């Protein structure tokens, strides 16, 4: 009796872990891969994985294909029934072809009329990618840095379409940037010295990226 109950429990658990799909709804992920010189990247692997954020949630490799001669890809697959299932597009992952990989995370709400159009996705050569670290050197007790932002060519390994910008409470201080360029850094400095009036100022800096990793220190 106990064995039968255990078997039934295991079957129910495995069923509940599986992602359910709607065969009458098909969603589309499309785009084009290019290099930094706008040349199409053909025969590069694109995979679509669905996964649940639950502790015992399942995942599926729901679709895959290679880009065509013009670097284009179009993948059509059944939509997950749940609105909370993540749809992850992995580009050129684990390929060892000298080009970077990219991951784009989405939910069904990010699809417009059943389609997620990634448009042109630029892949840089891994040898052209460097790291910029922003080091926050806090010497005062009444000041805070918020909203660090850089303008320039970035590798963009991971893009999360599912979160709103204002939901991101964590400061990003490490950036994967392209070598041999000038980066414009901007950040917000909040001064709480005057208890009555908080002073907020926008700060800027210019950072030269050469061939090595760069550390830029902000002292405040």
């Amino acid at each position: 009796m106990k064995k039968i109950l255990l078997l039934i429990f295991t079957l129910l658990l495995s069923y509940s872990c599986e992602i359910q799909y709607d065969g009458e709804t098909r969603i589309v992920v499309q785009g084009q891969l290019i290099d930094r010189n706008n040349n199409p990247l053909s025969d590069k692997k694109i995979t679509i994985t669905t996964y649940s954020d639950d502790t015992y949630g399942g995942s599926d490799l729901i679709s895959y294909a290679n880009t065509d001669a013009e670097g284009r890809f179009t993948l059509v697959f059944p939509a997950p029934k749940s609105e909370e299932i993540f749809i992850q597009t992995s580009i050129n992952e684990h390929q060892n072809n000298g080009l970077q990989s990219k991951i784009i995370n989405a939910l069904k709400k990010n699809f417009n009329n059943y389609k997620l159009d990634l448009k042109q996705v630029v892949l840089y050569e891994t040898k052209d990618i460097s790291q910029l670290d922003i080091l926050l050197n806090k010497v005062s007790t009444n000041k805070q840095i918020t909203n660090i932002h850089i303008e320039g060519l970035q590798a963009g390994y991971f893009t999360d379409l599912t979160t709103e910008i204002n939901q991101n409470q964590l400061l990003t201080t490490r950036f994967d940037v392209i070598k041999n360029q000038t980066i414009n850094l901007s950040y917000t400095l909040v001064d709480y010295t005057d208890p009555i009036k908080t002073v907020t100022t926008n700060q800027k800096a210019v950072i030269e990226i050469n061939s090595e990793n760069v550390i830029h220190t902000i002292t405040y």
Partner: protein
Amino acid sequence: MKFKVLFFLFCSFFLQFSYSQETENKSPVKFNHDFRINALIPSNYGDNFLAKANDAKLGIGMNFSFLRIYDFKLGIGYDYIPYSSTDISMTGNIKNADYQTVYGDVAYEIKITDKLNIEPYFGFGGLELKFRSDARDFGNQTGSNFRIGFNTDYKLAKRLSGFIGICYLGSKLDISTSPEFVSFYHNAKMFQFNIGLKIH
């Protein structure tokens, strides 16, 4: 849902007439009992999901003609056709699709010789296309279909005939997708080549 409602309606129709026995030989309405079972060779064509992204395998069909009105016969049938995926970019990473349909049809018997008959027919039905990889279920599409074709029966014994036939089957499936793909997933067209036995 359409699939189950249609099946229920035809069962009810069949039960109603199964109790109305003919009282006089002159009655044009007679209980009929032709049962066909056949292998089904599908040939999908056109710019649609089943033709372009799948490969059809050998199917099986059954048909029971239960009522005869003059030389017209009313019947119900069931077809099953398995498909395997050939284009993952259009099917998803799903190995198989199973096409199942329950339909009603009207046939007309034309006697050519003592042993040879031709039966043209047409019919309507509900269908379900189930997507699966091994034991894993990836949902299903439902829809309706229309068929027109004919069978040629050759009498082998008193109550047994062999037959071959050809049929056009046009299907419409429910789909919600990006507009440029609606027609691709909504339509299916095939010719079916049937070969089997009829018990009468």
